[in-house]
């Protein structure tokens, strides 16, 4: 997918994914670092504080006016957990210059984004205390709002329980008590450390003046002395030792069951396409075994699906059910897994899953941010192909490979979120 890559500073690449399909262009700026409890909250805060103001536009109102002037350019802060890695930075979405009656959107938006990243609004040599106090409250709200989405909350809790003490368990935005302790000085130090030591991948997707964008970023990095601290891959736990049962209660109407499995492999072991194909057949599509049996035949739920994290080697199965249906649903899910382990996959199921997966891989080419994410994750894991290459590998996969993959899967944790007045 990548048309061109330039190394513009130590540990900084800028990549061009050229396509003329779209009326807008995106730039994505990503710091990629190890997820660590000591730093994750500071790194999450960096994009938030930077977007509050830069030297040239010291308030967010001024930044936003400038963005509106640039035909509603949108800058989003970014902070993701990708397995043992934390990825943070910004995405900007800009209208193509040709729709803008002569405005130089690409040039001016790139400058604005660079001003925000490299030339922040400072007060006494550190970030503004007032802005920081504001953003601390916002970040704590975001962390606490995790309980609002019960499905996500229960899957996050399950992963946390399965990964205690490892980088996989580090919370995306960090811990509330750590956020409370951030000061303008500690945050500014973390920001300088990011600029000086954290690897950066920049992506430009669309049809625009790539050289101009690359030059601007190169210029900004040229006066920063960089020594890279590269993040490393974490060891995964390959097999469950015993099944942990965790029950929690909240005042809710529907029970959330989440089964956490260890697949025995992660992406560094290869076989990305085999894992995906397994997941498609097991529970990631409306013709999967879980959908057809647990939902359609047994009528136990509205959703029952599997989610595979190829970095952590963890697979989750989530279902929204009646409180009293926990045991029967759990058994129904395990029965379907057992079937795949025994090679019970029809030729039709296999072909269906292959077609469906190829369809979703090929759709990546129609979405700028999907292209960018695919390329970024691939740059991190270095162990799989571009979508069309993966689609070809899927074609050649056999039932034996899939059931061999399934045989290594072990149940580790059964997490159940239920109502206050549910029995048990």
């Amino acid at each position, binding site marked *: 997918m990548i048309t061109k890559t330039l190394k513009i500073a130590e540990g900084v690449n800028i990549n061009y994914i050229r396509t003329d399909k779209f009326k807008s262009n995106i730039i994505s700026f990503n710091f990629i670092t190890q997820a660590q409890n000591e730093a994750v909250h500071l790194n999450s805060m960096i994009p938030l504080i930077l977007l509050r103001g830069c030297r040239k536009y010291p308030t967010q*109102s001024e930044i936003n006016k400038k963005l509106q002037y640039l035909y509603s350019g949108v800058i989003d802060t970014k902070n993701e957990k990708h397995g043992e890695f934390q990825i943070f930075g910004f995405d900007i979405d800009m*209208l193509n210059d040709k729709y803008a009656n002569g405005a130089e959107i690409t040039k001016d938006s790139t400058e604005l984004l660079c001003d925000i990243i490299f030339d922040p609004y400072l007060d006494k040599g550190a970030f503004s205390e007032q802005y920081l106090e504001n953003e601390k409250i916002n970040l704590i709200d975001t962390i606490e*709002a995790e309980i609002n*989405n019960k499905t996500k909350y229960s899957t996050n809790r399950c992963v946390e329980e399965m990964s205690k003490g490892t980088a996989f368990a580090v919370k995306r935005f960090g811990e509330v008590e750590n956020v409370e302790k951030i000061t303008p000085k500690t945050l500014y130090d973390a920001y300088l450390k990011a600029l000086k030591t954290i690897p950066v991948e920049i992506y430009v997707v669309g049809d625009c003046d790539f050289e101009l964008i690359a030059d601007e970023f190169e210029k900004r990095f040229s006066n920063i002395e960089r020594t890279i601290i590269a993040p490393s891959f974490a060891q995964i736990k390959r097999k469950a030792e015993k099944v942990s049962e965790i029950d929690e209660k909240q005042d809710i109407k529907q029970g959330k069951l989440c089964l956490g499995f260890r697949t025995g492999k992660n992406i560094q072991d290869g076989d990305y396409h085999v894992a995906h194909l397994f997941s498609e057949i097991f529970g990631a599509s409306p*013709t999967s075994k879980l959908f057809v049996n647990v939902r359609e035949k047994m009528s136990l739920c*509205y959703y029952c699906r599997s989610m595979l994290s190829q970095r952590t080697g963890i697979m989750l199965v989530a279902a929204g059910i009646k409180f009293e249906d926990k045991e029967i649903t759990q058994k129904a899910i395990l029965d379907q897994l057992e079937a795949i382990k025994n090679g019970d996959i029809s030729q039709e199921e296999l072909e269906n899953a292959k077609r469906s997966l190829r369809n979703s891989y090929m759709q990546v080419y129609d979405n700028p941010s999907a292209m960018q994410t695919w390329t970024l994750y691939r740059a991190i894991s270095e162990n799989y192909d571009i979508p069309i290459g993966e689609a070809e590998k899927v074609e050649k996969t056999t039932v034996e490979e899939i059931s061999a993959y399934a045989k290594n899967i072990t149940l580790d944790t059964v997490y159940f979120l239920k109502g206050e007045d549910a029995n048990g």
Partner: protein
Amino acid sequence: MADIILKENKMLGEKYYAFKHKTGLDVYVFPKKMTTSYALFATRYGAIDNKFKLADDEKFTEVPDGIAHFLEHKMFECEGGVDAFELYAKTGASANAYTSNAMTAYLFSSTEKFYESLEILLDFVTHPYFTEQTVQKEQGIIGEEIRMYDDHPGARLEKGLLQAMYKYNKMRIDVAGTVESIAKIDAEILYKCYNTFYNLRNMVLVICGDVDYKEVEKTCDKILRNAPKQEIIRAYDDEKEPREVFEKRAKCALSVSKPIFAIGIKDMDISSDPDKRMRKAYAMNILNDMLFSQSSEFYNELYDKNLISHDLSYSFEHTQRCSFNQLSSESQDPEKIYDFFVSYIKKIQKNGLDRETFELAKRTIYASCIKSFDSTEEIANNMVYNLFDGADILDTPDIINSIDFEYVSELLSSMFKEEYYAMSVVEPIGKEQK
């Protein structure tokens, strides 16, 4: 071959072909050089259509809430126990469906074997098959879907807002119905609804992608049968709907971390001319952006005091059947936001809007309109939504350009009055305010 209408917008570099198929179905093909093609087969039938008759019928039929959505679920089951998803699995297409207040849509996206998938779509939506047993099975599944939304803060907020604003308007009805209402549904009543609303003359097919309209017509020829001419009469019973809101507040308590709120501004001024409706809709988008965007005084003052979070969202819904503006976010103190909102609007009404802010907001709305032509999915969905309301998406850039400062100023004074405001709040359990 049917008569083909070609509509083009040169500035956008976009066009579509439209024709009326001999069966009575309106077909739109929007060519787009993308890997993914997207098809939507939709009927003008949603949650609000719960009382209806055909012109020849003596009496109106009234049906339980949630039936349009229930029917959508059931359409996927074909005769002989086959599921439409299994049929799509042969082509690799990714399929889905949704029901809203005013329509039901069946869709797929595919990167290969498009016309085969289109055959499946046209075929299963025109072949209903319900038995008492399959209806019962679905009651279990949809019951869980309803319970899932009962725990969903955003869904509860929206429902509360509609029920606060409207006394009679059928926007009050929950699209999925309730566990009690869906228990009343049986096969016979499903067939009745199907035969009334899934008439091709009440439906539309919209396709966006690297697709040839001649092939689309051939596929229609192969699968579709002529639809009888019939006139559907729908009773909305909303003549008594008062201009002011029904209740000022709607509240519920859920297990959430912090209150979320939505302020609704009820509007009854709905033109019968679709172009005027579209113009008003975009003018309100511009006005909303002027009043509440991240560069506005409203946003920044509340944000600096930590009274709202990053996500302050606002939108204006404006169709033949309903019109309202809404503003929502999280806040420790929704009542304080409400008071601030009321006084902020009064102040701006007194001082007037600013012309430079108007120009910037107009740019914003114009750009987001252009960007909406980047995805086959978005194009097809926008097209259907607009077609059902009588409007044309290729007209949007010109309509936005035609909106002037005076019209937006007029809307500021006519739309915003205290008796039109209501607020819905979802509070954390145990922290409910009296």
